């Protein structure tokens, strides 16, 4: 392993550690939503600061490599991808933190009927498995899985699009529970954002492995294999 490879590996390790923190923030959010665990919410919010520190650290490590090693070809694409992947992981952390805040404001317990009709838990499960898979796609350099993730984001978008109507109907039936309705609506918006952020990461994986730009392509074409 040459010197540059060692430096790149050190960045990869840092990204991995950051990813674990954000994964915890997301998984714990769902637990807290169901169990009202205040301690867990506190931890999610506290981890945000750590995630931010990782974000800065990884940016700095990439900056040093650009300055000192003049990376080209796959190394250059990898570093460019890492800068964006890093930013997106950090934003997933931010979104998770925002969700924790909303859960706190929703005042436990959240009406099970509200959770059911808005499909927020289904969204949570989809986003969680997408987050785990995008991490796997990154480590295995698996562009097939990355393309699949771009397609899977559609489910989150579909649920999100219907949210306003569903929430209005719920409020009409339960005019005494407007606060929770708004908070759950907020959680859904953030989960939809997380889906987009995971999609962004998947696009960066395809960019650095296949040297193909898939972002901003028509949704129909994006998920397809280029051949």
């Amino acid at each position, binding site marked *: 392993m*040459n010197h*540059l*490879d060692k430096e790149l590996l050190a960045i990869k390790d840092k990204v991995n550690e950051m990813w674990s923190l954000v994964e915890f923030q997301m998984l714990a959010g769902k637990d807290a939503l169901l169990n009202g665990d205040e301690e867990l919410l506190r931890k999610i919010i506290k981890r945000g600061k750590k995630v931010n520190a990782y974000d800065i650290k990884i940016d700095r490590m990439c900056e040093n490599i650009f300055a000192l090693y*003049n*990376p*080209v*070809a*796959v*190394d*250059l*694409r990898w570093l460019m991808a890492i800068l964006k992947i890093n930013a997106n992981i950090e934003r997933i952390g931010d979104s998770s933190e925002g969700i924790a805040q909303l859960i706190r404001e929703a005042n436990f317990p959240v009406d099970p009927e509200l959770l059911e009709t808005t499909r927020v838990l289904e969204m949570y499960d989809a986003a969680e498995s997408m987050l785990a898979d995008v991490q796997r796609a990154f480590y295995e350099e698996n562009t097939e899985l990355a393309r699949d993730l771009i397609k899977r984001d559609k489910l989150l978008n579909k649920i999100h699009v219907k949210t306003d109507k569903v929430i209005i109907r719920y409020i009409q039936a339960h005019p005494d529970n407007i606060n929770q309705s708004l908070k759950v609506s907020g959680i859904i918006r953030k989960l939809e954002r997380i889906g987009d952020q995971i999609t962004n990461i998947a696009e960066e994986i395809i960019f650095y492995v296949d*040297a193909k730009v898939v972002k901003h392509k028509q949704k129909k074409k994006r998920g397809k294999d280029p051949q």
Partner: protein
Amino acid sequence: MSKKQIKLEARDINAYYGDFHALKGINVAMEEKTVTAFIGPSGCGKSTFLRIFNRMNDYIDGFKTEGEILLDGENIYAKNVLVDELRKRVGMVFQKPNPFPKSIYENVVYGLKIQGMSNKAALAEAAEKALHQAALWNEVKDNLNKSALALSGGQQQRLCIARALAISPSVLLMDEPASALDPISTAKIEELIHQLKEQYTIVIVTHNMQQAGRVSDTTAFFYMGELVEHAKTKTIFTNPKDKRTEDYITGRFG
């Protein structure tokens, strides 16, 4: 690529140093007024290939070339080609600055004098033009009679470029022209290459990958006598097609 004319073209070039097969079936075309960089590890054949374009290898014992080199569509290895005439059209700059132990002025007009030009005014005009083109005029205009050897390394190299340009070639071959220079002189040479390509077709051999990236339009990667890949420089440095090219430019060779 663009619609520029092909200036230089190698067709099925094989070259041998005795039994050693130094270049293996090279085909490459270079458009006029572009910069092409040759990169590759030592001994890959890139300098041998560069020297083929002005028949500099002809004097090496046991050296043999097969194939055709077309300059403006004419084979420079054809029997009726006069090597002296060829070298008026294809100038060369070497790795180490090699001015003659003469004055700055005499260095620049040397080629023209050999060609028989004797009109002093014409010579002076040609010298000034070449020194301007080589971005050296302002630094030496008051000291044209000073010895060329008194110049700094970077200035000497630009003088050698001026000397090559004075005879009005259309192709300029450069064999690691900045490898013996400090970063400021290197930057000047690179800036000069950018300016010169408006008029000349330039081929440059360089070990400095970043330099190839900065100055060239296309890059050719050579390995063990083969031309592995020739493409736009941007493509070579962002997404090379051949694994060997990628391994070389990312420093993972061997």
